């Protein structure tokens, strides 16, 4: 059977070999299945190792120069109390941040166990800091940090106006003090200074904390089947996940296509193939074969994602139409990029030579990829609508919009599919010309100018 002057059986045969020679190899199976599984399995191990790598319980003396003369003893108590805390202090009244930070506390190390010396309010900072350089030979006696609290840290100066900032404090440490230890000490200092300011202002610190804290409850979604927790974070992540999947599918298929074309050319099997097929049949067969590879990867990872959503009862987060559109836009985006990669593969003699010609294609692809992220955050902005209509950005941008919380109207999706189809056709048309001429050109690798000459020549 012939289609557009090409024998479909030959195109299918080339595609079949291309798919089999890529997807049925150990390298692909390892790359596509084993490596992701390996990294997934590695995650708990990494968490475990990070957990195991807690900083040592740091001991020593903290010298406090309290120039305000109001907070020294309280600071001293707070720092000494750190040694008794199971979890570090999180210096934020924001409940959500605290929740997030709470998850991180498990990763933090043992609390520092320190003793405190209160220095005179007029102590010379330079002199006290010298202790950080001294080696006492006994860790419990060495000074590990110096805290210098400003005079107006608790009360503003006499000439200050309401609303002016309070004074603060400086921390000086030995170089070897763990950054996490310093962080916990600063948390304690912040809280202590804040509480003292409240007290100085005649306020009850506990009451103020209660007043300024709003406990957030999970957003509830009301559906016909009942009320349930809304997964706002997942909803935000979804467009990104879809874009990354699309990018991965396009890149994988395109890269394989580039590699196999170069291999066929460098091994000189290309002329044997051209004696059996036309250049267009060969190129289309190769594109379709690697389309299968990209589609396989896409379906595999999408399938895994769907299984995960089913397991966590969140399948309704993703509409089935999104998956259909993802496949359509993958097809269009892949053809646009892969055809150009096939042309580059045909033009060069080895992979190393392809780098310079791949530069512009990779630039476009990366630009396309990164531009789609702001689109997903502002899916209805005029610029986002325009981007979702202009190839080669359109497939990524439109998919980001479709997967966002404000999906575009159908006519825009249809228009985008139309413009992308034109883009794909144009890309194949250009690539076919370069492919036909380039396949039998050996020797000096061409530059962009030469490629343009080939397009005119073919």
């Amino acid at each position, binding site marked *: 059977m012939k289609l557009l002057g090409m024998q479909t059986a030959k195109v299918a*045969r080339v595609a079949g070999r291309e798919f089999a020679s890529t997807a049925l190899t150990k390298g692909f199976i390892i790359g596509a299945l084993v490596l992701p599984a390996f990294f997934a399995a590695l995650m708990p191990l990494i968490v475990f190792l990070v957990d195991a790598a807690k900083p040592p319980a740091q001991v020593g003396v903290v010298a406090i120069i309290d120039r305000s003369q109001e907070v020294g003893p309280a600071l001293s108590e707070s720092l000494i109390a750190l040694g008794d805390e199971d979890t570090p202090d999180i210096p934020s009244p924001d409940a959500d941040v605290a929740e997030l930070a709470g998850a991180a506390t498990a990763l933090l190390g043992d609390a520092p166990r320190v003793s405190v010396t209160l220095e005179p309010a007029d102590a010379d900072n330079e002199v006290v800091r010298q202790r950080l350089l001294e080696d006492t030979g006994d860790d419990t006696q060495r000074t590990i940090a110096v805290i210098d609290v400003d005079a107006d840290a608790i009360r503003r100066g006499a000439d200050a106006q309401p609303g002016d900032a309070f004074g603060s404090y400086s921390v000086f440490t030995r170089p070897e003090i763990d950054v996490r230890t310093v962080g916990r000490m600063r948390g304690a200092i912040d809280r202590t200074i804040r509480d003292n300011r409240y007290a100085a202002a005649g306020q009850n610190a506990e009451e103020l904390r209660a007043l300024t804290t709003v406990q957030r409850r999970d957003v509830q979604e009301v559906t016909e089947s009942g009320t349930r927790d809304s997964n706002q974070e997942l909803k935000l992540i979804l467009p990104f996940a879809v874009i990354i999947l699309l990018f991965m599918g396009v890149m994988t298929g395109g890269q394989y296509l580039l590699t196999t074309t170069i291999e066929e050319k460098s091994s*000189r099997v*290309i002329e044997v193939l051209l*004696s059996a097929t036309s250049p267009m049949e060969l190129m289309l067969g190769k594109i379709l074969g690697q389309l299968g590879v990209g589609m396989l990867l896409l379906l595999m990872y999408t399938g895994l994602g769907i299984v995960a959503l089913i397991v966590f009862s969140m399948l309704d987060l993703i509409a089935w139409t999104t998956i259909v559109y993802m496949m359509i836009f993958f097809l269009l985006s892949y053809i646009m990029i892969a055809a150009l990669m096939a042309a580059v593969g045909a033009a060069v003699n080895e992979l190393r030579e392809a780098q310079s010609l791949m530069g512009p294609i990779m630039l476009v692809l990366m630009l396309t990829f990164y531009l789609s992220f702001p689109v997903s955050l502002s899916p209805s902005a005029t610029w986002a609508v325009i981007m979702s209509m202009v190839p080669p950005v359109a497939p990524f941008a439109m998919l980001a919009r479709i997967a966002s919380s404000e999906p575009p109207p159908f006519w825009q999706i249809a228009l985008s599919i139309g413009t992308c189809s034109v883009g794909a056709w144009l890309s194949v048309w250009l690539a076919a010309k370069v492919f036909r001429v380039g396949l*039998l050109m050996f020797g000096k690798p061409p530059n962009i100018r030469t490629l343009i000459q080939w397009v005119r020549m073919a």
Partner: protein
Amino acid sequence: MSNAIRMNGVRKTFGPKVAVEGIDLSVPEGSLHGFIGPNGAGKTTTIRMIMAILFPDRGDLEVLGRKSAVESKDRIGYLPEERGVYKKMKVAPFLEHMGRLKGLDAGPSLRKATRDWLDRVGLPDVAQKKCEELSKGMQQKVQFIASVLHEPDLLILDEPFSGLDPVNMRLLRDLIREQHEGGRTVIFSTHVMVQAEQLCDHIVMIHNGKKVLDDPLGTIRSRYEPTAVWYEPMSDGPTADAAVSAIEGVAGVGEHDGHREALLSEHADAGVMVGRIAAAAPMARVELHRPSLEDIFIEIVSADADTDELQQLRAAVRGGENAASEAEVGS
């Protein structure tokens, strides 16, 4: 008899370089045509245009009655000069893949044909070996199978003997003859003219992209009558040379390719001259020396070339001493 190939005023350029200039050609069905000429003469470009791998800038071309080989690729077998295989693919799957690309159906008959051909070329044990595990000569035989597996009507072989040892050259030559005897049209391209001389019944000589000779081998031989007699005196010394040079009809004596040679005058009868030379002095051997294709080629192009160029051309069309001796061993 209809033509398997017909070319009319075909021209092909690559940038400023004219690779093929106005070639007219008719290759009748069932013939064994030799395309000869030095490297870079335009043979491969001509073949690639026949195969519709390249397209002419100008001129008409018909292959197996179609306007382009694209429409009849399944009826053509092609062994290109630049040979290659899928290195990681096993031999039998590679051949089956090529067969299927040429329109054969997958199945037991294709597998059997593949096995039979591997047996015939002396590679019965390589079917499940990867192509990269084969020697260059073995790969060449595998590629030859790929070109004939689908039993084409037209077989085009571009430098098929390059890189083969004498034994495999003989095997391949026999297989080519067999294909020809089976009624197939065979085009055989080589820069080693002695190979074409041994195999072809029609010679097309190409030089600098132009066809300079297109005749049956018999016609060429009759047109280019012998102009020298090689002789080997029984004893060394100047006596025999002096006796030969004194014969009427001998224009001079000298040495050519290690042979004593008497050059004949323009109107001398070669048959008579052999007898006269044999009688002039005691001879171990006297032999009429027919001009080879190489000599004819040099004669044709000598008008446009200086001495250095002629020497270079002679070296190019001989394909080196090894190629010539291999050809002799293989014949």
